[in-house]
């Protein structure tokens, strides 16, 4: 009986690339690639690991164009369960087709890969709008988000420009990652350096939020009310962290 082999890598992007480089050299056709964190052993499966080799990882990356690398990183940041295998085949075909890969939409790895990548950029774009900051009493703007994909890195690039003269922190609540920004630099930390329940807000925070909610409710035209449409554009899963939807969220069954 053929046992299914799962290849395992060490939870970082460069580790995955190293693994893929080795698999390409060995001409493997991987059925499944998983990060150590996500791998669950089952009765009929076995796993295989390769030693991390930064040299061959770098060599592989150097063969790929900027556009291809950008796409792979987007796929990597997604929460798609089979993203690693998609990346493997995407890279393998990129070596053959170069930038023409983007026109090879009849290949499964290409149309799947581009779909996943687009899903990540689209979510990033949505969060450029949906992220809500609160002003703390130490002049820091603080936001909590809970995106489906791991977009905090892409999102912070946007706020680095927009709020370049402010101090701000964005927290990905589920992944427990903070992005901290001050004076042109971003820092990522993943333990509880800041404890959200100890945060103290600026004395005007309440008044501003009230103004905003007031505006939000006033700007809607009653005769045109269409909450279904609203929900399809601003799905319920985001409500918890969107201040104007707070009250609706509290009243809804979650």
């Amino acid at each position, binding site marked *: 009986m053929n046992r299914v082999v799962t290849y395992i890598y060490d939870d970082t992007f460069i580790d995955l690339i190293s693994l893929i480089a080795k698999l390409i050299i060995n001409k493997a056709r991987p059925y499944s690639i998983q990060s150590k964190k996500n791998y669950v052993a089952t009765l009929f499966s076995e796993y295989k690991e390769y030693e991390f080799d930064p040299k061959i990882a770098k060599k592989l990356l150097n063969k790929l164009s900027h556009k291809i690398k950008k796409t792979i990183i987007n796929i990597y940041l997604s929460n798609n369960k089979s993203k690693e295998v998609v990346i493997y085949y995407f890279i393998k075909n990129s070596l053959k087709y170069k930038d*023409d890969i983007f*026109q*090879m*939409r*009849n290949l499964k790895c290409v*149309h799947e890969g581009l779909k996943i990548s687009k899903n990540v950029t689209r979510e990033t*774009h949505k969060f*450029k*709008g*949906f*992220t*809500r*900051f*609160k*002003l703390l009493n130490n002049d820091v*703007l603080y*936001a909590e988000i809970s995106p489906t994909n791991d977009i905090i890195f892409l999102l912070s690039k*946007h*706020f680095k*420009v*927009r*709020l*370049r*003269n*402010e101090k701000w922190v964005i927290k990905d609540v589920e992944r427990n990652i903070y992005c901290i920004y001050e004076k042109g630099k971003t820092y990522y930390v993943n333990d509880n350096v800041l404890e959200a329940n100890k945060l103290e807000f600026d004395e*005007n925070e309440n008044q*501003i939020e*009230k*103004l*905003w909610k*007031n*505006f*939000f*409710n*006033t*700007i*809607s*035209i*009653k*005769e*045109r*009310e*269409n*909450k*279904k*449409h*609203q929900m399809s*554009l*601003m799905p319920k899963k985001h409500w918890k962290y*969107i*201040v*104007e939807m707070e009250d609706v969220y509290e009243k809804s069954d979650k």
Partner: protein
Amino acid sequence: MDVQEKLQILADSAKYDASCSSSGSKRASKKGLGNASISGICHSYSNDGRCISLLKILLTNACIYDCEYCINRRSNNIKRATFTPEEICYITINFYKRNYIEGLFLSSAVIKNPDYTMDLIINTVSLLRNKYNFNGYIHAKAILGASPSSIKKLGQLVDRLSANIELPSEASIKLLAPDKNEKSVTKIMKQIKENKNKNFVPAGQSTQMIIGATNDSDYDIINKSSQLYQNYSLKRVFYSAYMPINQSPLLPMVTIPPLKREHRLYQADWLMRFYGFKAKDLLEKDDNFNLLLDPKITWALKNLSEFPKEINKVNYYELLKIPGIGPTSAKRIIKCRKKFKITFLDLKKMGVVLKRAKYFITCDNQYYFKRDNFNKNFIEKKLILEEKPQYEQMRLFE
């Protein structure tokens, strides 16, 4: 009166302006706060499902004019309020910092006279740009009858200017907005067009028309739009379904705003701007759009002799005429078919809406259905059935 109450009054008076787009400008962030994003960003969606990207308010709702359809008309007995420039800056900056909004959309009723109103708007925007170093998106209303010099001043401070034409014909304007005339609007549009550059109204100008307040047909409306796009290089014409706000013998008796009609007009507007259609292709004189089928399908059914089109052969402009294919997927098809022969299965992966396109195309000379099904009756019936049902699901307890 406190800021809270003013905001309520002046947002309430501003909500009928349809424009909320924040795209088309890439104002950089230098010192100070914010930038403009070329793609535009929606920050929230109100209960009516419309996007909120700008803080949409009036500077004042105390108007000297008396337009029949307008909530702020002089003869209406409503609460009046006026913001101070500092108040507007305070709200804008604080909302922007918290990422509630993409910028400000400042409009105003005409108070005292047009130039006085313009000066108030200019003062506010200038305070925002120069004292608070705000680089976010600003859309301001150009007040009809304002002097060319004040338009010039304001245009250098904002990303977008707009003057609302409101109604598609001079006769309708005369009837419902006796203090306005078409010329006063086009005069401003012309001036904005002539001055436009990267430091003057970089995101271009827009306008708005009310739909269903007068007897003008859809043909009149899109014909007017296409003239405006052509003559004044407008970025957008917005359509706003007429809402019965005021009682007047001159206004139609409706209770439900014509939303479907508004939707069809937007679809036609897109066809004219991005798909190479002309107003006269889409409608005959005095006609209205079919509410059951969208304008592109209606056009395709009327010109069925041009179809089916072969996906692997026809050029970009031909592809654009196929229902279910837009600029993005058309470009994709052109690029991809150089690499491989496209099949029906591939089309789905390329973002083509196959459920509409399949009736109008062949892939490598294959038709999706039996060949003799390619006739108007079959296609029309199928497409009407595929449109979303128009009923609401019944609720148990109501």
